[in-house]
């Protein structure tokens, strides 16, 4: 049996890395006596696969994992058992059986919607944020530098992220804090992190954001077909 679970990553636990999270889940399966299927071989480990890694320091209410089991268990029981063990901040909000042929999470859920709070360094009514963002979206190219690891060395490549931005809007402005909403691509075909988006705003518009101040939360994930 294969089960898919939707979970949250909130509070300080947003600082757990992808690997930390996998280790946490594996320990939690053991502790909650969930009949996990193990891989064969020298060092058996649970057949668990997570979606695309969430950037460190960003909260989410919509992360997913798939897990293979050796015997069936009701999705409700699965959820309840795990939630008893999982720390506050990481909670299974939904779980359901899927069949073997269901495409993987990382290949299907590749659009992410984020809510971002960030302080602006611009003073007063100096600029029109709505206009600036619209102008940014009017650009054909929004180039950012991406650092990649190639073997042991790090290389920098220039990537145009404009095709991967499906939505970017100013929701409201409260004092010097701006609330943004965005839908961007995540995954191997294209990936935009919230911080990269903010850097692009600083580079390409008159808006000057205090990048140290940003807080982001992933609020929804969508499939490839979704058009934001």
């Amino acid at each position, binding site marked *: 049996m294969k089960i898919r679970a939707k979970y949250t990553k909130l509070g300080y636990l947003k*600082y757990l890395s992808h690997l930390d999270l996998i280790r946490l889940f594996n320990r939690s*399966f053991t502790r909650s006596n969930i009949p996990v299927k193990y891989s064969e071989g020298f060092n058996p480990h649970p057949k668990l696969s997570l979606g695309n890694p969430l950037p*460190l320091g960003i909260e989410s209410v919509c992360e997913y994992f798939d897990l293979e089991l050796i015997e069936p268990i009701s999705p409700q029981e699965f959820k309840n058992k795990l939630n008893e063990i999982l720390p506050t901040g990481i909670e299974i909000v939904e779980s359901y059986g899927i069949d073997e042929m269901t495409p993987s999470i990382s290949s299907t859920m590749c659009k992410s919607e984020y809510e971002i709070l960030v302080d602006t360094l611009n003073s007063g009514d100096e600029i029109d944020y709505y206009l600036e963002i619209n102008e940014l979206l009017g650009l054909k190219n929004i180039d950012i530098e991406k650092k990649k690891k190639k073997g042991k060395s790090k290389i920098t490549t220039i990537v145009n992220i404009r095709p991967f931005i499906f939505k970017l809007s100013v929701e409201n402005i409260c004092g010097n804090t701006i609330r943004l909403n965005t839908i961007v691509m995540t995954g191997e075909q294209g990936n935009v992190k919230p911080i990269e988006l903010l850097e692009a705003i600083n580079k390409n518009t008159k808006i000057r954001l205090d990048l140290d101040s940003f807080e982001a939360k992933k609020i929804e994930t969508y499939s490839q077909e979704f058009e934001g």
Partner: protein
Amino acid sequence: MINRKSLDKVLKKVEKPARYIGLEENSHNKDINNAKVKFAFAFPDVYEVGMSHLGLHILYNLINDQKDFVCERTFAPWFDMEDQMRKNNIELFTLESKEEVKKFDILGFTLQYELSYTNILNMMDLANIPIFSKDRDETYPIVIAGGPCAFNPEPLADFIDLFLIGEGEEATLELLELYKKHKEKGFVKKEFLYDAATNVEGVYVPAFYDVIYNEDMTISKRIVLESKVPEIIKKRRVRDLNNMYSPEKMIVPYIETVHDRIVLEIFRGCTHGCRFCEAGFIYRPIREKSVDSLINQAEKLVESTGYDTISLSSLSSCDYTQLDLLIHRLLDKFEDKKVGVSLPSLRLDSISIDILKEIERVRKTSLTFAPEAGSQRLRDVINKGVDESDLENAMSYAFKEGYSKIKLYFMMGLPTETDADLLGIRDLSYKVKDMFFNRPKEEKIGNFQLTTSVSCFVPKPFTPFQWCGQNSIEEFNNKIDLLKKTFKDPKIKFNYHDPKVSYIEAIISRGDRRTSKLLLKAWEYGCKFDGWSSAFNFDTWLKAIDDSEIDPYFYANRERDLDEILPWDFINAGPSKKTLIREYKKATDGKTTSDCRESCNACGIDNCEMRGVLN
């Protein structure tokens, strides 16, 4: 409580932010404001190292199980975090309540290795606490310290208010109770310290003593400054381990640590009497836990942690009298949960084929052996009671069982060592390799790799070698060169420790009150995390040595007279000084001393639990 917004901002900028967030499984969520005594447990190294330390888990659970007390953790922030904390005015805080360490009643450091001492000063500074004991009044926490290095507390005497010598399970609670009493009637620091020094066994308060020196810099005498304060401090030891507090929970870190596993302490002490080993002397006598209580504890730990490995911990785990039974029962119990058992460094003499076979049932790990010296002559000098046939037996068992990755540990610079002894390290290593490849073809299982690691010997207090001079850095380097040239096989990896680090360790570990100056200078000049080769800066240490006007030769390399008053002589660690002198003389004569399970060597421990056992 520190500003959470600043912390959040800072955490986005540092490497491994989960080092600083707490909230792990089995960490407590008591309300700190309801506690009558707030204890901050400080490990003077980075989180991953500190969380792998068993003592932390014991004391943490012990204290938090008490209604009136709360214990929270703090670690040395890594360089990037310290930088951010200083820039953003974030004081050193505890992981649980994110409370400033300064607001705690007691700040307790654990002393596991001397090269963490600069971190202690740095952590006090980060906490905005004056570094010198004399500068801290009642508005600051009482700063205490314990752990193996507290057996020579003198290098830290200027900084720490109170040391606890020996095992902490009982003494810590006595101390906290005493603190509570004093807090209730109006806390006066000196009164509390005096009460502790005179009424809690194992407590040492440096301020109540003075030391007079001779012209040749050696100690002339110690003076007790307050009446009724004990002249000799007797170490604490727990007499009955089965009824001792044993944690049923361990905090499970989110990030990978040095040891991600259950640590099951199977006994304390050691009976071998290896003459270089401080732990072997200060933790005497041996006291075992019963198989039943260990199984019971393991069950609770597996349940509360979800770990997949149980490490059987002690100074020499193969000595456990019912090891076969213990391993069998553990493996049977947890096999379906895929929980394996691991043994740290094995002694060559006691390993048995059954044990290896059992461990292998779930997971194969590499094997580590510690012959310590390359020749039989030198192994006799250090009283490491193993010989080459032990090694041969152990290796043929290991290879037969399919282990192909072997690690051998040695020391160089041991007393009386010659080039011939050193070359024995090479010979033993090649012998192990040849043994593997001389096996019949079908029995050569796996990809053979031998790692031979050689460390620089540091003479330690309370060992028969406490009078010996350490080799100079130059001597060590010559020995390394000699060995390096002889290792030319790609199947054998030769590792060695940096003699410069061991030199600093030697100065501090046998230091006295005057060594405080060196620690202060080194810290002022920016030394911290000295146990990390990436952080250790020898030139800065040399400058600190120069400016603090201490003679490094006096502490590290000088051979002491047997009748010299040593800085730690006022501590009764168990075995008598007479015993250490006898062992020292036997060592130089190349005579061995038997395991004290075989016959009592009358080492001087009062009411020894071992006396009469197995006789």
